[in-house]
């Protein structure tokens, strides 16, 4: 099997699993208790919080554990919107955010908030002038993703942070794809809130965190006990938190080497596809791009068919086709960068890990060539295209 869907989820690293195991069976105490068994759990949670805070240039007390990236996004938007509703009810985001942001924004619109959805260019980048122009006296929050999950484009986060700071507006970034892959410093980038998820960086599923800068008003997201400084009640997911800490530690340790390896294999894969398969193009920015992301549109064919055929060859990938989403519309990200529906239907996303090799990419491209040719042979759109060429 060749796993090329690391943007969907990653393999939990063995060292992460090993770090977690004792917290199921030996150190199972509740961190809120007074006896030493609970103390061990509490220390483990604190250690993980410190590792994560350090990785972002943040303070330990600014890290709040959640059940994942979606919860962190929901919390960042809903609780902040509520806390700052006296100042205003206007939020700025982009059209290519993850649904955890977009659907939360739609919910807030129903609650009387106004949301500006910034356009992106063909590469998926927001325009900083448009961002400035969208800011109003009642704007309370800007939420722009660090890097896009589908096309891998990295947004100008430091520039957005500077604009937000100058205007006195809070800046949240959904860094679910970026955290662990790209260097992030919340002070240098003027980030006030940041969401991340454990299972995207070889950590466990069901755990994530929200960074909230000290001084930012945010309502409690889950009411109950005093956990997470009373802002997110519920007994801590200690094994998950330990796993996230171990994954963060590992990610920071290997980032440079991982990035170097991935970019080399990524660019090799991109070049082979571009050189050897006609009528296709790379989606997303060529250089301002996650080290592990490859996203192509192949004209005249449909994504799900490609995925099934790749799966039969043991290759795991994903697509922005409608048929893979359960709805009739293709990916909002691909439509957001200006692709036509049929171009978005024919997209293929391959997201690498540091373990993938050029030899694996050779296998993928060799098979992909045949798959694309076979599906085009079957496609009435390709038939029409060939006939139009003959005219």
């Amino acid at each position: 099997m060749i796993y090329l869907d690391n943007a969907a989820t990653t393999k939990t690293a063995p060292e992460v699993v090993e770090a977690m195991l004792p917290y199921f069976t030996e150190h199972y105490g509740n961190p809120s208790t007074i006896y030493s068994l609970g103390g061990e759990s509490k220390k483990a949670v604190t250690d993980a919080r410190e590792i994560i805070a350090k990785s972002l240039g943040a303070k330990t007390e600014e890290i709040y554990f959640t059940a994942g990236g979606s919860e962190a996004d929901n919390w960042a938007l809903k609780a902040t919107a509520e806390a700052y509703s006296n100042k205003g009810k206007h939020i700025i985001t982009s059209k290519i955010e993850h649904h955890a942001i977009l659907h939360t924004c739609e919910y807030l619109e129903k609650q009387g908030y106004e949301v500006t959805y910034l356009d992106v260019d063909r590469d998926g980048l927001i325009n900083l002038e448009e961002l400035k122009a969208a800011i109003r006296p009642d704007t309370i929050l800007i939420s722009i993703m660090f890097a896009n999950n589908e096309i891998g484009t990295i947004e100008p986060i430091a520039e957005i942070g500077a604009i937000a700071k100058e205007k006195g507006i809070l800046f949240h970034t959904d860094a679910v794809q970026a955290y662990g892959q790209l260097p992030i410093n919340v002070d240098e980038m003027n980030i006030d809130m940041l969401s991340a998820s454990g299972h995207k960086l070889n950590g466990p599923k069901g755990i994530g965190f929200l960074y909230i800068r000290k001084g930012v008003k945010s309502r409690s997201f889950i009411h109950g006990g005093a956990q997470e400084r009373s802002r997110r009640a519920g007994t801590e997911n200690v094994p998950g938190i330990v796993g996230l800490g171990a994954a963060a530690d590992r990610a920071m340790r290997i980032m440079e080497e991982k990035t170097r390896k991935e970019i080399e294999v990524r660019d090799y894969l991109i070049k082979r596809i571009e050189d050897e398969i006609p009528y296709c193009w790379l989606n997303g920015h060529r250089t301002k791009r996650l080290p592990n992301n490859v996203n192509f549109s192949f004209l005249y064919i449909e994504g799900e068919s490609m995925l099934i055929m790749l799966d039969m060859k043991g290759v795991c990938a994903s697509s922005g086709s409608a048929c893979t989403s359960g709805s009739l519309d293709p990916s909002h990200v691909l439509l957001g960068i200006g692709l036509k529906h049929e171009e978005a239907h024919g997209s293929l996303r391959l997201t690498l890990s540091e373990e993938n090799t050029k030899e694996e990419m050779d296998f993928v491209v060799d098979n992909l060539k045949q798959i694309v040719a076979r599906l085009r042979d079957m496609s009435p759109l390709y038939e029409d295209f060939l006939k139009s060429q003959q005219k």
Partner: protein
Amino acid sequence: MYSEKVMDHFQNPRNVGEMENPSGVGTVGNAKCGDIMRMFLDIDENGIIQEAKFKTFGCGAAVATSSMATELVKGKTIQEALEVTNKAVMEALDGLPPVKVHCSLLAEEAIHAALWDYAEKNGITIEGLQKPVSDISEHEEEEEY
């Protein structure tokens, strides 16, 4: 997610290809929703469908229903072919996941569109056949954008 039969018809689609001088050809669906099916029929002087071919742009379910639909109409009379409904195609494939049911409608519409084309070419009326609404020409497709 797919039945064995769907996977079989997706991996080894029957009757895929084009036809020279078909008795009737119909294209249905649109690129916007991600499925386009073109069906070619060769109908003899007795009104028997001798040959059926298809080309499809779409997901696994769309390809499999196209393949099965061509199999089901081959050797049938026009009236019998009209009875090849989306339900019949789905049943022959041992079912489709709920989100894919719309793909099977495409097969039924493609049969109807090809038969309509045949009727028009021959100046005849086929009882029970309505003019297919989802037939798209290249011209109409361009207008959509």
